[in-house]
């Protein structure tokens, strides 16, 4: 009987506050259904079995956690807002003779009610949309679709448990909060006359300084390694600065405007500036959150979509041939023509068997050695200074040694070099080698005979991170030896093995390519086993561009998909913050505008004033977000180049595209909420 009574009170409480609860429940529904969809997909058999499915599932698995963490933060935030609005009601109950325990019972039932509603609806939406999302995802990652519809009970239960925990913790916090306040406070909490904030110059200026510093870091990043290591620092700095600027900086700015009497005492500015000061203290945090969320959406969408749309270009850079074989040797000296010859014979047999003609064959030997090149001198790390703290990874360069014979064969050239002469090509700089000589610390000097204008790089990939010097020499063994002596071999960094590369294209369908690829793998395995202990190479690898492409699309498509899902969640969050802000401000401002009307402001002036305030409040965060995105651009570009995405145009286009789509969506929200606000202020 008693339970029924409090249950009823809770239900009527929700109904009476539907203006607050409906958006809250909608957000819960969105979060729960997104959470279900993403974790459902991360465990979906269909996707797992696709080629590249592993990477998709792994990416989505991470996404599940991101959504969960965000849900916790956001639900706490909105809950505190709801509680603030409801305090008065609870205070009244308390004074009318209900004790705190009873109020807790009401809270408990309210929580049960909206949990059940959001959970059931969230699941219904989640399950219905999961198939749809699966189709989109499969389409995005270029997979093949099936039409069976599955429901994962495991995921449903897991999601239920996760959100049950979140909601229980929120409930617990509310109960504790109610326990420790007295009824008068409860009653009064909404209309405590708030002091206009004092301008805090220190925090305001600190915010500005931190922001400028973060922008400076972002702009001065020159290579991917720096970008990676500074990215999170910059992100944290920007977030801090945004909060400081919105909370303290805005007040400082408004105060400065008030000091300027000529500016301040103008009909357009007078009311707006004064009320901005007043509301910034409370809304600064909300606006900053909106700004951060918008920035997150923009960054996520622009990077994931540019990765997705730039994928083809990236794959072509990473894999220059349809199929390629590589074998790794300890050094040039170990290379044995006989072993490689045997492999090549078997490969040719395979071509004949499948009646394919390999095209644009590229066969080349090369060694990569990493070290530091300053001016024209190569240092190893003999002094151990490669690992000094003041020496960043970004100072690393690598040298690729190619023999003149290979160079001439591959490039169809007839260059000739003396013993102490080399040819030079520098990647990743856009500049040619500037010096006439090249010196190896402790290993002699070479004369640079010629700067090679263009060179097809072996691993287009890695060269986007490290600056690579291609050295063409008649004596690769000798050069390799000298370089290795300069480098302390114990500290060998990356790729100081010699490789034999054999790549080719086949003009046939994917199936034939795959057959050839599988057979080549088999051949290499057999050859290596046949040689037993007497084997010159220590590793081998075969790649098929088609398979790599699937993997790549799997990962990038998965990321894009996840990006879209996260953006939806973040956008809902931002919209809800805006909505709550407008409602609560509407009720406060109503009283203010009534006074202004009495004092002699007409409706047109009031509308104009409201408009200018709304515009500022709405578009300030998105303008700042766009600014953040603009300054983040060099960093994003560098980080993306690390995963071999170097097409700047694609990034620019997707960034601007995302911004445009976002601005349109935002304008729609603005229009809807401002109508609501006018309604409240004008008292309808």
């Amino acid at each position, binding site marked *: 009987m008693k339970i029924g009574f409090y249950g009823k009170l809770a239900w009527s409480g929700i109904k009476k506050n539907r203006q607050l609860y409906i958006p809250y429940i909608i957000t819960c529904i969105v979060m729960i259904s997104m959470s279900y969809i993403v974790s459902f997909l991360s465990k979906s058999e269909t996707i797992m079995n696709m080629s590249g499915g592993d990477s998709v599932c792994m990416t989505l698995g991470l996404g599940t956690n991101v959504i969960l963490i965000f849900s916790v933060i956001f639900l706490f935030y909105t809950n505190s807002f709801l509680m603030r609005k409801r305090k008065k009601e609870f205070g009244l109950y308390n004074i009318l003779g209900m004790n705190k325990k009873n109020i807790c019972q009401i809270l408990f039932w309210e929580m049960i009610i909206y949990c059940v509603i959001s959970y059931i609806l969230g699941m219904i939406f989640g399950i219905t949309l999961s198939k749809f999302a699966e189709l989109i995802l499969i389409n995005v990652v270029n997979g093949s679709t099936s039409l069976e519809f599955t429901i994962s009970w495991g995921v449903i239960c897991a999601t239920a448990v996760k959100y049950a925990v979140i909601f229980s913790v929120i409930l617990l916090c509310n109960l504790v909060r109610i326990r420790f306040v007295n009824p008068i406070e409860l009653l009064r909490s909404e209309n405590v006359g708030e002091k206009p904030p004092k301008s805090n110059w220190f925090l305001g200026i600190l915010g500005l300084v931190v922001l400028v510093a973060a922008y400076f870091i972002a702009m001065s990043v020159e290579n991917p390694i720096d970008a990676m290591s500074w990215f999170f620092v910059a992100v944290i700095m920007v977030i801090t600065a945004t909060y400081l600027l919105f909370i303290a900086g805005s007040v400082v700015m408004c105060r400065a405007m008030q000091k300027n009497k000529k500016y301040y*005492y103008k*009909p357009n500015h*007078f009311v707006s500036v*004064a009320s901005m000061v*007043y509301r910034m203290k409370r809304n600064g945090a909300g606006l900053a959150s909106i700004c951060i969320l918008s920035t997150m959406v923009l960054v996520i969408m622009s990077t994931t979509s540019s990765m997705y749309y730039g994928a083809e270009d990236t794959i072509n850079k990473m894999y220059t041939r349809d199929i390629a074989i590589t074998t790794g040797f300890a050094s040039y000296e170990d290379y044995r023509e006989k072993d490689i010859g045997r492999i090549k014979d078997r490969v040719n047999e395979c071509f004949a068997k499948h009646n394919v003609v390999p095209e644009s064959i590229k066969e080349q030997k090369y060694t990569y050695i990493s070290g530091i090149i300053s001016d024209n001198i190569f240092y190893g790390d003999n002094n151990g200074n490669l690992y000094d703290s003041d020496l960043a990874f970004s100072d690393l360069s690598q040298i690729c040694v190619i023999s003149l014979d290979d160079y001439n064969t591959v490039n169809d050239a007839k260059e000739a070099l003396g013993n102490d002469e080399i040819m030079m090509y520098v990647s990743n700089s856009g500049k040619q080698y500037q010096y006439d000589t090249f010196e190896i610390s402790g290993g002699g000097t070479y004369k640079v005979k010629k700067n090679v204008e263009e060179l097809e790089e072996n691993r287009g990939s890695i060269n986007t991170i490290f600056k690579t010097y291609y050295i063409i020499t008649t004596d690769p063994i000798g050069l390799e030896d000298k370089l290795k002596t300069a480098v302390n071999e114990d500290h060998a960094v990356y790729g100081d093995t010699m490789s034999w590369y054999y790549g080719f294209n086949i003009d046939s369908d994917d199936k034939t390519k795959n057959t050839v690829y599988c057979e080549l793998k088999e051949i290499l395995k057999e050859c290596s086993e046949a040689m037993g202990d007497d084997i010159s190479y220590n590793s081998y690898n075969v790649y098929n561009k088609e398979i790599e492409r699937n993997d790549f699309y799997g990962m990038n498509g998965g990321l894009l998909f996840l990006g879209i899902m996260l953006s939806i969640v973040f956008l809902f969050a931002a919209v809800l913050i805006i909505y709550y802000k407008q409602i609560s401000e509407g009720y406060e401002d109503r009283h203010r505008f009534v*006074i202004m009307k*009495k004092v*002699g402001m007409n409706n047109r002036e009031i509308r104009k004033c409201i408009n200018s305030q709304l515009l500022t409040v709405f578009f300030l965060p998105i303008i700042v977000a766009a600014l953040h995105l603009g300054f983040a651009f060099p960093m994003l570009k560098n980080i993306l180049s690390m995963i071999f995405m170097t097409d700047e145009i694609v990034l620019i286009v997707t960034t601007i595209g995302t911004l445009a789509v976002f601005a349109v969506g935002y304008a729609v929200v603005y229009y809807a909420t401002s109508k609501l606000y006018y309604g409240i202020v004008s008292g309808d």
Partner: protein
Amino acid sequence: MSILDVSGVKKVYTARFGGHKVEALKNVSFSVEEGEFTAIMGESGSGKTTLLNILAALDKPTQGTVILDGKNLSSIKEKNMADFRRDNLGFVFQDFNLLDTFTLEDNIYLPLVLAGKNYMQMSARLEPIADLLGITNLLRKYPYEVSGGQKQRAAVARALITEPKLILADEPTGALDSKAAGELLKLFRNINSSGRTILMVTHSVKAASNADRIMFIKDGEVFHQLYRGNNTNEQLYQSITDTLTLLQSGGDR
């Protein structure tokens, strides 16, 4: 010369559904001379507030005319109404109606800023008014930092600063303690003696006894008027009390 002429004003409210009509004002006619301090008294529901709203041009009469300084209020177009109100009328309200986002100074400037005056003009005007009202030292404070009486004095300053033809005061002492109320009424007398016309609606006999003339409204009509003549405040107070007793015991004229 009369500054305000109210003749034959009638106000009928119609319920939204059905034809049920409520007559808030039956037939009100009076005029106020320039420099006069008039009080309007009446019980709740007698039509005081309706009358004040009509005088303030916040509401339109069903019948009759209100002429302020030779201008018929109903002839003023809606879009010019706010300007007219701002330039010709000063308001003092029971609950002060100061904006908590502004300092007292800025609250006082509000109507002038809306009228597009610059800071120099405004501060030149404020100086003597603030001096008269004794709030010069409080100008930098916010409404929540000062007492009720001080708030009301700031509100009076806001009403005075536009140099209006008529000051309308709606229960100005209603939210004040007796000491603050006494001080405010003294200020009203000072303001009045410096030439301002004041029309005050009030419940309080003490407040009304400061006026030159008291009009009693009952059931939507001007029921009776009292003139100060050569009476002191105390004598006037007595006559008002007598009139009110008469009014309440339902006696006819």
